[in-house]
Every structure is written in C-alpha cells, then in structure tokens.
C-alpha cells in the first residue's frame, strides 16, 4: 500500500478513527474525574460523536473506497452513520439521569457505547466479509458487557450470559458461511465474489454458505428463528442499553444485510424466498407474542421483533425502492422507538420501575403532555397516519407491490393490524384507567430535549416525508 493510498484510506475512515480515539481518551480521563462530576463524561462523549458526525458529513461528497476494497465510505454508509450518531447521542442524553439512579454512571459505560458505535460504523462501511465480521464483533462485544452492567441484578447477569452464548454460536455460524464462500470463490470481498463464480449461481455449496451467512446476520437483527435472545436480553439490560440496542445495532445489522443482499451473487441465489419467509414469520411471532406481555420492556422487545420483520419485507422486495424503504424505516423507527423508551427510562425513579404496563394506569390524568407524547409514539409504532410510522410502512408496502409481491403486502398489513392492538392497549391504560398512585418521572432537561427531538422527528417526518425520502433514495442508489 502506497503512502497516498494509505492517506486516502485514513481519510475515508476518519470518523471511525475519531470515535475510537475519543473512546480511548475518555477511558483514561474517566479515571481522573472526581465523583459527582460524571456529567462531564456525558458531554465529552457527545462531543466525540459530534466531531465524528462533522467529519462524516464533510467527507460525504464522494465515494471513497479504502483499505484495498475492505471498506468504503459512500452515501449508503453515510446515511446509516447519521442514524447511528443520532441513536448514540440520544442514548447519552437518556443515560445521564438513569445511570445516576441505577448507579452505573462510570466512564466505562460511555466508553463502551462509543466503541459499539465505532463497530456499527465499520459494519455500515464494510465491503468484505471479514471487515463485516470485525465490525459485528466489536459491536456485540460491547453490548454483551453493557447488557450485564447492572451487576447487582441477577436478571441483568443472566441476560448478558445468554446473549454471549447465543451470540457466540451465531458468530460461529456466520464465520462458517464465510469460510465456505472463501473456499468456493477464493475471495471474501463482496464485489469479487460474483465475478469469481463462473458456473451456476445456484451451486448447493454456495447456497449453503449464503444460508449460513444469512443466519448469522438474522441473529443480529433479532429475526425468527434467531430471536430467542431478544426478550430476555431486552428485559434484563439497563433500559438505556435496551433502547440503544433496539435501534442502533439493529440498524447496523440491516446495513450489512442490505450490502450483502445487494451483491449480485446473493441476489441470484433466490435468497429472497428465505427472506420473505423470515419476514412473515418474524412479524407474526413478534405481533402475536407481544399481545400477552405485561412488562413494558418485554413488550417493546417483541415489538422490535415485529418491526424487524416489517423491515425484512423491504429487504425481500429488493430493488432501489426496497433498499430505500428499509433505510427510511430504520431512521423513522429510531425516532419513535427512542421516544417511547425515553418515557420508560424517565419513569424509572425511586421505587417505580416503570416496567409494568399496569403501573401506567391513569398516567394521562396527571401528566397530560407526557401522555400525549406516549400516544404519539405508540400510534406511530402502530403505523397510523399522520405519524412517521405510517409513512415508513407505506413505503415498504409500495416497494413490495411494485415488485409484484401483493400477497406479502397483504400479510404485512394484516399482521400490523394485530400489532396495533398491543400499542393501543397501552394508550387505553394511560388514558382510560384511573390512577392508583402518584407519578414522579425523573424529568431532566436532557430528557426533555430527547423527547422533544424524537417527537419532532416522529410527527415531522410523517407530515413532510419528501426530504427524508429523497435522502434515503439517493443513499440507496449510492450503495
């Protein structure tokens, strides 16, 4: 590698370098910060992410391949990275008070989040199965630790352990698929794979490899049949981490899935049938099981499975619109899901866990504004216009019907009618029941800002989707 090429590579990966360096510096600084000064860490972490975001946007002008084709900074990656920055910054803001209440506000917490962010960024940019693997592992290793961060709580430890074991297995499956691909094609680079195959793309060995890779990736987005870890991990992890995982690493998983499936080799192997089945089953399972949940975090876990299923439909549709629809879906999902998690996080105060849905009874009576926000997020998650959640679903459906998958679209809407039930059930609890006790949400300025921002996104994208749609479409073509 010449010096010029190296320079270009470093330039292309500058945002990742910024985040990793920032994380390392914070790790050291964190030891020097005195007790009671932890809010410094929050703002320093936010600053690191903002600098990286600035770098990403300044470099967004052109496509920059780097590291001999293992990495690329293109518009597709930029779109996802912006989503990740958004998610991470909002998670920092949500964490500030929550970490204090739960006693987990040490510097490692923020450092691990930053490292997970860098892993996600690598996933979005990776164009080689091995660099994908590096990004994937960096992300999940950080989230393993973060899941178990509530050291005193048994269920947090249990969740982390489950996550590590199941995650390890899925990684193994993924790597096995990669090794098969390498054996058959002699390369792990996505671009070269297609060119290396001269024969029938439906070679059973190749198909097997693709299935293994799909299985490994599907685990990361929590789709059926590799969804079992999701409810336990989401319930056991600190709520801020659950919020983060439900949007950040999930979006990163979809970034990889899209990159891999955009690949002509994979596309030729009729993998969409597998994806369509996974999508339908995932959505059905998420929607139906969520119906009977009493725990808010578990319900949101199943809801996130259902949403992963819906986004999967976009992957199954494929094509420029299909890819753009998944990207837009993930962006919108980040807004509304972080919003509803923001409320759950805020409710964790004193003896109130904020996790039992019944405990929210009559919430609207004493906190009109917050209840209205909940209503907004929940109807958006249910996909009722004029919220953004509707437009996200609408665009996926357009992509499906456009490709002739009308039956899939019908399945998708029927299942989303099922899913609507458990969202509006929460609305019922907060609006139509009498309160049993007083509520004392831990409402800090940072939380207020987060809620205002997510609400603005949820309603704003719903009313004026044109600009965001164009953004997603441009980025999708760039990929």
């Amino acid at each position, binding site marked *: 590698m010449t010096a010029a090429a190296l320079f270009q590579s470093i330039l292309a990966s500058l945002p990742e370098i910024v985040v990793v360096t920032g994380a390392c510096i914070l790790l050291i600084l964190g030891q020097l910060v005195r007790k009671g000064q932890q809010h410094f860490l929050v703002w320093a972490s936010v600053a690191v992410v903002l600098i990286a975001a600035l770098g990403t946007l300044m470099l967004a002008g052109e496509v920059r391949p780097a590291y001999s084709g293992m990495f690329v900074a293109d518009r597709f990656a930029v779109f996802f990275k912006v989503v990740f920055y958004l998610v991470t910054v909002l998670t920092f803001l949500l964490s500030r008070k929550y970490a204090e209440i739960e006693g987990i506000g040490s510097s490692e917490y923020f450092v691990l989040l930053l490292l997970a962010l860098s892993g996600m960024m690598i996933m979005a940019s990776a164009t080689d199965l091995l660099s994908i693997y590096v990004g994937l592992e960096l992300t999940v290793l950080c989230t393993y630790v973060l899941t178990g961060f509530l050291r005193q709580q048994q269920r947090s430890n249990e969740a982390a352990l489950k996550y590590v074991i199941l995650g390890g297995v899925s990684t193994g499956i993924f790597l096995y698929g990669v090794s098969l691909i390498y054996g058959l094609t002699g390369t792990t680079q996505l671009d070269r794979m297609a060119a290396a195959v001269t024969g029938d793309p439906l070679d059973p060995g190749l198909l097997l490899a693709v299935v293994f890779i799909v299985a490994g990736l599907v685990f990361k987005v929590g789709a059926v049949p590799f969804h079992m870890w999701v409810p336990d991990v989401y319930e056991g992890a600190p709520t801020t981490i659950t919020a983060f995982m439900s949007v950040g690493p999930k979006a990163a998983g979809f970034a990889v899935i899209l990159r891999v499936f955009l690949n002509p080799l994979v596309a030729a192997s009729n993998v969409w049938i597998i994806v369509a089945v996974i999508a339908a089953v995932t959505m059905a399972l998420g929607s139906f099981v969520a119906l009977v949940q009493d725990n808010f975090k578990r319900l949101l876990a199943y809801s996130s499975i259902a949403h992963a299923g819906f986004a999967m439909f976009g992957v199954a549709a494929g094509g420029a619109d299909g890819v753009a629809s998944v990207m837009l879906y993930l962006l919108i999902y980040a807004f509304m899901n972080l919003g509803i998690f923001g409320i759950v996080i805020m409710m964790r105060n004193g003896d109130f866990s904020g996790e039992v849905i019944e405990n929210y009874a009559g919430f609207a009576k004493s906190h*009109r504004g917050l209840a209205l926000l909940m209503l907004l997020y929940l109807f958006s998650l249910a996909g009722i216009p004029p919220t953004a959640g509707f437009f996200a679903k609408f665009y996926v459906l357009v992509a499906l019907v456009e490709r002739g998958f009308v039956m899939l679209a019908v399945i998708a809407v029927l299942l989303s009618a099922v899913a609507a039930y458990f969202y509006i059930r929460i609305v019922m609890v907060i609006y*139509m029941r009498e309160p049993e006790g007083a509520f004392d949400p831990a409402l800090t300025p940072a939380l207020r800002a987060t809620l205002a921002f997510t609400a603005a996104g949820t309603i704003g994208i719903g009313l004026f989707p044109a600009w965001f749609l164009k953004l997603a479409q441009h980025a999708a073509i760039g990929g």
Partner: protein
Amino acid sequence: MAVPLLSLIVFTPAVGAAALMFIRNDDAVRWIALAVTILDFALCIAMLGGFDTSTHEMQFTETHPWVPALGITYTLGVDGISALFVFLTALLGWICVLASWVAIDRKVKEFMVSLLAMQALMLGVFCALDLFLFYVFWEAMLIPMYVIIGVWGGDGRVYAAFKFFLYTLAGSLMFLIGVIVLYLHGGETFDIRTLMAHDLPFQVQSWLFFAFLIAFAVKVPMVPVHTWLPDAHVQAPTAGSIILAAVLLKMGAYGFLRFSLPMLPEATVHYSTLMLVLSAVAIVYGGLLALAQDDLKKLVAYSSISHMGLVTLGIFTLNLRGLEGGILQMFNHGVTTGALFLSVGLIYERTHTRSIADYGGLMKAAPVYTAFLALFALSSMALPGTNSFVGELLVLSGAFAANLAVGAAAVLGALLGAAYLLGMYRKVALGPASIGMRFKIRDVNAREMAAILPLAVFVLWIGLYPKPFLEIIDASVKHLLAQVQGKGGAQ
C-alpha cells in the same frame, strides 16, 4: 382563486384544537370550541355561496407538491357530492359542541381537542383529491375517535373502542393495499382525477373492487361487518354517536361514490347485483334487529344499519334516481339520525337510563322535547313532508327499476322502520307516565334548542323543498353516472 378556502375550512378546526391545548378554563374551552366550529360553518356557507352547481368539475381546487418522489400531492377540491358532505360535517360540528356542553364534565379540554381534530380530519376526507392524502385523513380519524369513545364513553367503552379501532383498521389496511395497486397500475400518481380517467383491466378492477369493498363496507357498515357499530354507538358519548352516525358512516358510502364507481366502473356494473343483495339484507336485517331493542341508542344504531342499507342500495342501482336518492338519503340520514342520537342524549342526561321500558308518558313532562322526538321519528320512517321521504322515494323508484325483488325488500325495510319507530315513540312519549318519569324531567332549554332546532329545520326544508339540495349534486351525479355507464356499460 387566491384564498385557499378549502384549506381554511379543513384546518380551522385543527388550529382551534392546537390553540385549545393552551387554555386552562373549562368554560373558555367550550366557548372557543363553539366559536371555532361556527367560524368553520360560516366558511363553509361562503364556499357553498360561491359554488357553481352547473358543472361537475372540481371546484376551489388547490394543489401543492407534497412527496414528489412518489407523485403525492396535497390537492383539495369539491364537487357537488363532496360539497354536500362538507356542509353536513360543518353543520354537525357546532351541534356536537353544544351537545357535549354539560354532558362532558371531565377532561373537557381533551374532549374538545379530540372533537375539533376529528372535525378537521372528516372535512379533509371529503375535500381530498389525492388518494394518499385521502388515506391519511381517513386513517388518522381512528385516533381521536378511539379516544372519544374510550375515554368519555359508557361502561363498556374500552371494549367498544377496541372493537371500533380494530375493525376499521383491518378494513382500511386492505384499502391501503388497493390504493398502492391502483397507484402502480394507474401511472404512478395519486391524483384522483387522473385515476378516474385511467382504464384498468377488468381483472385488476375486480380485485380492487373487493379490496375497497372491505374498507367501505366496514365503515358503512354493511352486514356482516356491522357488529362494531351497535357497541360503538351505545358506548360513545352523545357527540361521538352523532359524529359516528352522521358523518363517519357516510364515508363508506362516499368511498363507493368517489372510488369504486368512477375508477372501477366495469367491476361495479359486474358486481352491482351482489351489492344490491347485500344492501337489501342490511335493510331487512337491521330493521328486524331494531325491532327487538330495548335500549334507545341501540335501536337507533340498528336503524342506522337499515337506513345505510338503503343508501348503498340507491348507489348500486346505478341509475339516476337511485344515485340521487342515495346521496340525498346520506345527507338525510346524517341530519335525522344525528338528531335522534342528540334527542336520546338529551333525555339520558336527565334520566340516566336508555331503556325504553323505563320511559312512558314523557309528553306530559316535556312536551317540546317529545314534539321534536316525534318529528325525527317520523322523518326516520320517511313520512311525506319530511326529508327522508324524498330520498327514500327516489331510492325506491330507482330500486324497482333495477331489480324488483330488491325493491320489495326495501319496502319491507320501510315498513319495519315504521313499526320500531312508532313503537318506540308510543312507549316513550305516550301512555301513563312511568314512576320514575313523573316529576324530574326538565324540558328543552335554550342551549339544547339551539342544537336541535337547526336539524328540525333541515328535516322540514328538505321534506318540503328539496330542490336546492338536489341541484348541488345533480351535475356531479350525472357525470358520475356517465363515467360508470360510459366504461362499465360498454362491456
């Protein structure tokens, strides 16, 4: 046209709703809601004043790009048919505010906000000329209506709200798929006028016809997807029942008129017999169920099913008299059933019972009230001189021209209507006063009079001189018929 009149009409209640959120005093909330709805009504009168009845073209149109990448625009406009329902919605807006003046005594602000939001969305549905925009208005209505039924309703409100929500949602989602298919087959546009001019293959039309049928049939509601209606009507607060009966049910029929007939003419003609039979079933079945009810609201609710059957019957006769009668009957049903629910609400506020068996001899205690009740009951059973007579006569003559058996069923429905309405009136108003009704019944006061009198005026006005109302819709109906026969008749 420089002034975006329709946008003003649609968004005045929305702005009002937003403004109400910052007001703390309940009385101020009520007065502002009333002022907003009256202002909206005035705007609507202004719109009708400038309305040209000689053309079927869309009037007062406004177009702005919304999501250009998908061909979605913000387009509003009215023809004769939609103008009539914009008027009906605006009229009932302030009547609903008056009807809930004292009936809603908790969370007044939230109620009025929901009511005004509902108003804006309903007006939007009738004005939208872009399919996507239409769908957004159509579906967004679920949110305020769910809250209105679920928060301020009766004892079984939660169940009723869920049932209403899920039924309508499931129906609408099929419609959504239909909309997307239509969009892709119709040249990637959501513009309703362009789509009307577009010819679709019969196969596609058939599929779309049934996708639309599911959504509209739930809303109308047609038998067998009517079961949400009695629950929702009975549990909803008075204003909610009025909105449901007077406007929401019209949207299903309006959907047939706006989409199924002009966009899918061949399928409409092909399946019109099926629709006629379904309508006839609804007429008779709804009437029989109404006959057996003891709950006043349930009786009116089932009578609604019967009467809406008459509306769909008129529409699918696909002849001029049937269509005009059906559309006029939609308006009439809005006025009459709205008034009946209002009447039931008024008496319920006094007695806290809706069971017919508890009533008797009400005429002595509240003569003015019972006079109104008599008028609306007579109107509902289409006595000559009242509004429904005109509509029903037109529908029946259209029905007999289209299909003798179906016409006979419609007549049977009218007979049943006379039976249950007169029976109800006899038990409630005549005879000896029942124990509970002897002393405490107060007659209609000024505020209630202001709500109920306009409806009575419309009952008699349309009954005696329907010409202005028929004139509004005439050109549009003729054009619609030409669209159906031009394409659908040619097969």
